[in-house]
């Protein structure tokens, strides 16, 4: 009797759906990035307080949004993976992590590049900045766990535990500006009473935000596909050993 390899069954349906989405997502990313950058660099006016530096916002804020959304998405996938043992859920959390780490890194770097002209320093140890740094550490820890276990099913569980425990950090980042008085400015787009900034800035910001989101989807599809194929690769090597 052969080993029941059903567990490792190829999530073909997932691949089929993503194959349809992929070209659209890639095209949308390029289109929106083009428009967004044009608006951001040429059309949108200078801020009366911040001058031209406000243009950093168009790369800083979408990255910051994505860094938190991606982590939340990973936490949900991890929970699904743990509870329903759905193989694609674990893999999608794994695939999303490096993307989220890149966005977090970008939010940190662009933020500190903005900080120098605005606050006179690249870095301050206030709650929002620090909790972002922690988020970056959490991403690194998550990826390190995947590296540290040789057995992928074990790694998936360990990483899921970590990502769920770390999820408490997301609300801390989001509300840190409200809970502690910090240098960083409070939310003005994603608030309860709707956006508070002028549409000449809001429009390009939202376009860039959507562009980043579809960029995420594009890269995510590539990475999940790689993870799924990688799992199949391992499985087939195993079968070869068995004979």
């Amino acid at each position, binding site marked *: 009797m052969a080993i029941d390899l059903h567990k490792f069954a190829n999530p073909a349906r997932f691949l089929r759906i993503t194959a349809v989405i992929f070209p659209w997502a890639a095209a949308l990313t390029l289109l929106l990035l083009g428009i967004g950058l044009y608006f951001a660099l040429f059309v949108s006016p200078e801020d009366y307080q911040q001058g031209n530096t406000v243009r950093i916002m168009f790369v800083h804020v979408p990255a910051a949004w994505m860094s938190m959304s991606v982590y939340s998405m990973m936490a949900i996938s991890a929970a699904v993976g743990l509870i329903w043992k759905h193989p694609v859920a674990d893999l999608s959390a794994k695939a999303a992590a490096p993307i989220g780490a890149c966005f977090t890194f970008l939010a940190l770097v662009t933020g500190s590049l903005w900080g120098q002209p605005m606050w006179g320093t690249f870095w301050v140890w206030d709650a929002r900045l620090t909790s972002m740094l922690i988020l970056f550490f959490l991403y690194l*820890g998550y990826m390190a*766990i995947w*590296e540290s276990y040789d057995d992928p099913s*074990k790694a998936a569980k*360990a990483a899921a535990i*970590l990502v769920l*425990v*770390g999820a408490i950090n997301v609300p801390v980042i989001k509300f840190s500006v409200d809970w502690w008085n910090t240098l960083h400015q409070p939310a003005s787009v994603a608030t309860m009473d709707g956006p508070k900034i002028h549409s000449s800035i809001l429009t390009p910001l939202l376009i860039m935000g959507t562009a980043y989101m579809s960029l995420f989807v594009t890269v995510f599809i590539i990475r999940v596909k790689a993870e799924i194929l990688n799992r199949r690769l391992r499985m087939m090597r195993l079968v070869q050993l068995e004979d």
Partner: protein
Amino acid sequence: MGSFFSLLKRDIQLAVRQGSAFTMTLSFFVIAVTLFPLGVGPELSILARISPGVLWVGALLACLLTLDRMFQADFEDGSLDQLMLGSMPLEIMVLAKISAHWLTSVFPLILITPILALSLNMPGEGIGAMILALLLGSPVLSLIGAIGAALTVGMRRGGVLLSLLVLPLYIPVLIFGVAAVEAAIAVLPVGPHLLLLSGLSLGALVLCPLAAAAGLRLAVD
């Protein structure tokens, strides 16, 4: 329950016998905190200003120091396998280990804190708050630490991960703990901060044993 207390008793006995946890954290804490005035210089005003931070950071680091042995020693000599075969739920077993860790590695720190706080010139109002904040908040350190320790036990790259995983999660305790002491020094109400710390402890008490037990199940596999 018998199992719980027997494990607790053994871990305390081991700590006393080997001295490893018990006095190790204690001396680390004392020396770390005494090194500070040496490094920063003896100006009393600055010392007083930074004393809550120094004490909390010292406690965090001292606690971290013993975390990696929480399950590692049992893993290496095969005791962990046996512990997992007992009739009590794994989560309770983990809770016994966590309690032992807190009693042997964290509690002694709290006892010595008043003396260190005085030596750092912390105002009297702050010292009481410091002790209370430590008592209420420090269980979180052992509880969250257990997750890190369980996830990295037997791992080839354990060491790195442990501090990378655990320290970020310690930050809320640090922030609220320091805030409580500074509020007390500024003669502002301390209650809300202490409530928050207790809330963290209770939350961690419920969640962490579950996560740590899940981590251990992976380790013996």
